[in-house]
């Protein structure tokens, strides 16, 4: 790969631009570049790996056992990408992708616009928001953030630490922290007890899943070493200026414990902001309780030329992500005329059978770890939109008194979703809170309609765009 450090290093045209350097993005870029396409991979982070393989080539952790064998699978994907002919632009932000496949890319305060013949978005997943009272207090962060600290910097959250929520990743992070010699004062498991009943019918599929043995081992390990409180039905962070206490209810009993840190996690959901801003149609996934893009078998969105792979296309995990990246790359190569349709289909076959293996039992996990309603909608005094500091109560009141139909209308009254994060964090909470208040579904209520720039961009950055003579003459006087 050729690492770019300045927007001036970018070509004006690429056959394929891949957005996001996680497993899907790296695998897609590598395959396409190896077949001779001119490829650019743009990524926001300083190093490749995405979140799952974050800092896989640069982590300061010397003890490989600490992060577990699955993490190191990223090394091979990263090495293959490093050896490819693709251009790689780290620390760069895509603030626009138009349906005409024009991309606006910023880095170091400069920006450039370029054209792609095909685009693959591999923007991965976000942690599902977990709006509880007091979650904006310093001392509260996502469990994913705690894991990122460990991977990139070898830094661990210490002192009195409480981990709360549900989902497979929660157990992985717990195991990694325990392996690093850290401890938890409590692990508060919010998995609703009733989930076991609904998930049971999908258990046979899960019994053949490659994740089963791994998952059970992980949970047993954590259970041996940490105090786990299950059936937690309410949770709040308290303190003045910093977290001091965690208040929770389990089995109908309210308990308060002292805490320096509260790590929250309740699963991951596709990061669909850029897809939405590029006009790709979305659909509601009732098992994963999240929006995902409408895609065909090759990951193509409803906008011609734009495909999505990896967890951004629907949560399926890191190993599936790399395979899905390859599927979208094959179709891009066929679209570019570099391989034939017959070659595409042939080369996709073994990849698809791998994908089927990872798919087994996914539904079981989705159903088992569906977070409870009370942790998905914002309570009366709980902040839903952290940027604009809008509470669940304010949303419900606006919805019922002003008969607001959905998140876009709500923006004009409460500004929620209009802060710097542009609804990335609160989008799901707001859709679900409105749906609850209206006695409707998120599907009917809809999602924020997003607009470019999808990330804040300064006027100075826009002013750094190259202008043609004609463009200058159209606006300049004299």
């Amino acid at each position: 790969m050729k690492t770019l450090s300045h927007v001036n290093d970018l070509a004006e045209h690429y056959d394929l631009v891949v957005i996001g350097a996680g497993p899907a993005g790296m695998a897609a870029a590598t395959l396409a570049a190896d077949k001779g396409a001119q490829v650019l991979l743009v990524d926001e982070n300083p190093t490749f790996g995405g979140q799952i393989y974050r800092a896989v080539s640069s982590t300061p952790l010397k003890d490989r056992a600490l992060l577990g064998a699955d993490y190191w699978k990223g090394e091979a994907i990263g090495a293959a990408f490093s050896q490819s002919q693709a251009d790689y632009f780290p620390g760069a932000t895509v603030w626009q992708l138009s349906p005409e496949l024009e991309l606006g890319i910023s880095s170091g305060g400069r920006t450039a616009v370029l054209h792609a013949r095909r685009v693959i978005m591999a923007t991965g997943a976000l942690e599902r928001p977990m709006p509880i009272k007091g979650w904006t207090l310093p001392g509260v962060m996502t469990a994913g953030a705690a894991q990122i600290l460990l991977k990139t910097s070898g830094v661990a959250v210490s002192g009195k630490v409480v981990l709360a929520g549900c989902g497979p990743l929660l157990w992985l992070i717990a195991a990694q922290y325990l392996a690093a010699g850290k401890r938890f004062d409590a692990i508060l498991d919010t998995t609703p007890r009733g989930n076991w009943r609904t998930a049971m019918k999908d258990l046979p599929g899960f019994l053949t899943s490659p994740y089963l043995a791994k998952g059970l081992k992980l949970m047993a390990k954590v259970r041996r070493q940490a105090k786990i409180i299950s059936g937690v039905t309410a949770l709040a962070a308290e303190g003045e200026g910093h977290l001091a206490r965690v208040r929770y209810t389990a089995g109908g009993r309210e308990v308060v414990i002292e805490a320096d840190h509260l790590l929250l996690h309740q699963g991951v959901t596709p990061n669909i902001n850029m897809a939405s801003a590029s006009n790709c149609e979305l659909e509601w996934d009732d098992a994963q309780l999240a929006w995902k893009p409408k895609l065909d078998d090759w990951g193509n969105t409803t906008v011609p030329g734009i495909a999505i792979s990896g967890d951004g296309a629907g949560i399926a995990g890191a190993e599936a992500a790399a395979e899905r990246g390859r599927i979208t790359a094959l179709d891009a190569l066929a679209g570019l005329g570099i391989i034939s349709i017959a070659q595409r289909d042939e080369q996709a076959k073994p990849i698809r059978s791998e994908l089927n293996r990872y798919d087994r039992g996914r539904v079981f996990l989705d159903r088992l770890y569906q977070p409870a309603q009370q942790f998905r909608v914002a309570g009366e005094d709980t902040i839903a939109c952290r940027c604009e500091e809008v509470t669940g109560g304010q949303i419900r009141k606006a919805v019922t008194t002003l008969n607001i139909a959905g998140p876009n209308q709500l923006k004009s009254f409460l500004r929620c979703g209009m802060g710097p994060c542009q609804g990335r964090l609160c989008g799901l909470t707001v859709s679900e809170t409105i749906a609850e208040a209206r006695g409707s579904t998120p599907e009917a209520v809809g999602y924020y309609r997003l607009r470019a720039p999808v990330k804040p961009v300064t006027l100075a950055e826009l002013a750094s765009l190259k202008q043609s003579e004609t463009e200058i003459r159209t606006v300049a006087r004299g």
Partner: protein
Amino acid sequence: MFQRLPDPSGSPVSFTLDGRPLEGRQGDTVSSALLAAGVETCRSSAVSGEPRAPYCLMGVCFECLVTIDGVGNQQGCLVALRPGMQVETQIGRGKRELAR
């Protein structure tokens, strides 16, 4: 509290926070260096002026905003720490002061 695990690889990186000298390590982002140095609150919220600290460390929440080398509202969790960086917190900067 945040603790570096013993025996990390990567060399020390010196930078300043609000003029005060601090040390991070190679591989740190601005936010991870601040957290490791014990600095959690990096800004005040735009509406009520409440203290805020990095929340997601993956570019989503914008809670980690700081001023870096004179440029305001940078996502500290996405910027690699470099020697000599001048980082400033955005605490008590007044409501809705977006950039400077």
